[in-house]
């Protein structure tokens, strides 16, 4: 009996100590939080412009936000949003403009390196253009995808593409486009029979995918080859503006 009482007494003491410890830690956290808030506001005022211009500072800031489990791009109504958001929201709009402008050429599927080239060209008009990397484009697209599901990243072969039309590329479509991209440095074109042999598919399966991609304007047909018609991947063509 006395053993049981002793154990109960010890458990109660342990519980009380734990609660006190917890409260002390919480108080410490409150103090640290206030200090962090103050530092963050000061940082935003002093270095906000620098963070928006420098790719390495943006990466560092994202890493810090990841530690805090904060999405700095979630809302513009926050210190984090005001510090970093403007850069990514503006980048998102530039990406939409480039995708719309190049859609007649590529059917709404554009490689990220090409998109980056076009976006950087738009920013060179600014007096002090920011550094923009592929990582920034990926983050901006991910945010746009919250609003419009037609904007998404799609990996085809070893290259990342941006899809900006309301369609889903099936595994067959991706495999076909991946095969055409692997023909580099040769032109990205092939006939139905060539694709059928290379992919190990029945010709009907190739025709089905080719028709779907042609309707999306992601493939164009060249019927003047003198032999079998050849299908060209528009997203892989180097089209001068």
């Amino acid at each position, binding site marked *: 009996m006395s053993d049981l009482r002793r154990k109960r007494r010890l458990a109660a003491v342990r519980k009380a100590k734990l609660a006190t410890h917890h409260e002390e830690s*919480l108080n410490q956290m409150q103090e640290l939080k206030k200090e962090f808030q103050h530092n963050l506001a000061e940082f935003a005022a002093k270095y906000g412009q620098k963070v928006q211009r420098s790719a390495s500072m943006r990466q560092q800031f994202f890493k810090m936000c990841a530690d*805090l489990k904060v999405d700095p791009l979630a809302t513009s*109504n926050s210190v984090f949003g005001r510090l970093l958001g403007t850069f990514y929201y503006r980048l998102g709009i530039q990406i939409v403009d480039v995708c719309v402008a190049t859609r007649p050429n590529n059917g709404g599927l554009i490689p990220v390196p090409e998109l980056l080239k076009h976006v950087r060209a738009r920013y060179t008009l600014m007096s002090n253009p920011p550094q923009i990397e592929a990582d920034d484009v990926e983050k901006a697209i991910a945010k746009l995808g919250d609003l419009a599901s037609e904007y998404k990243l799609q990996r085809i072969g070893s290259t990342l593409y941006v899809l900006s039309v309301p369609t889903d590329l099936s595994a067959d479509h991706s495999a076909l486009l991946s095969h055409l991209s692997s023909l580099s440095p040769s032109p990205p074109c092939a006939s139905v029979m060539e694709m059928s042999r290379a992919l190990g598919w029945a010709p009907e399966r190739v025709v089905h995918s080719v028709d779907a991609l042609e309707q999306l304007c992601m493939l164009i047909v060249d019927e003047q080859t003198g032999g079998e018609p050849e299908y060209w991947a528009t997203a892989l063509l180097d089209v001068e503006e």
Partner: protein
Amino acid sequence: MYVEEAVRDRSSLSKVKLVLTDEKAATALLSHIDTAILGAAQATSSGLGRLKQVDKARQRDRQSTLDAAFEKGNEFTGLEENLEKLVALAAKLKGLSSSEAESDFATMVTEIDTVATVHKGQKDYEQHLAEDVCRVLVPRLNTTPGGMTTLIEAYALYNRARAGDLISPTDFKGAVALIKSAEASGQALGLVHRSVGKGGLTVLQLRDAATAESDAASAVLERLAEMEDRDSRLHYVTAVDVAQILSLSVPLADCVLLRLEEACTVCRDEGPNGLVFYRNVFMDEAFAGDYPTSRL
């Protein structure tokens, strides 16, 4: 004494001779010259040793300058130190009681993230945005065929109107959700949220889009009539054709065609040419009787 005189009065040949012949005097002179050249007030040693000392002192200065510069250059240092303490404390709290610690930390982070603006909270901010979006888009959509715009175009349009003060896609989505719920509750915000077609492409359209849709229908039917008059055959249009006719983007032209189909102005045909739309001849009075097959 001879050394000092020799240094002070260099033109005195005899004194120089003395310095050169007397070893002690020569050593003293060299030490004096070292001091004079290096510009040190007090020399602890002479010659190479002194040079090494000065070089070490310069290296120390350079290093401390670099350290100071690095500290000043790394603007994140103060923030990151602060953050490390926060994260370590959170981990400690987590060890005590995982669920409580997680929620305490999450609440704390939310408090860091909130800016004291004119808005009382996120909902108030989104309500303000919803009203502002309607205020900006309604005049624009009044002059757009079909009176509608896709969400992404609306977002780009609205942010351009805000110039520098851009909003996030998530905030815009929240504002659109409020527009949708306002419509459901009968509140007149000027815009309605609509899903068009099987794919459910989301658009924002004028609450009163009758005129805009009628204008779009007239333009499309006029083009179809022109083509029919040329060779007395039924012709079709695609989304790309309608995009050119109405000066819209292709996805939006697709939405306009789907709305015209819902209004029975056009009807679809899915075949070798893909998805195309013909004038809805089934609504013609002439179809009440036998329709001339030569027109098909």
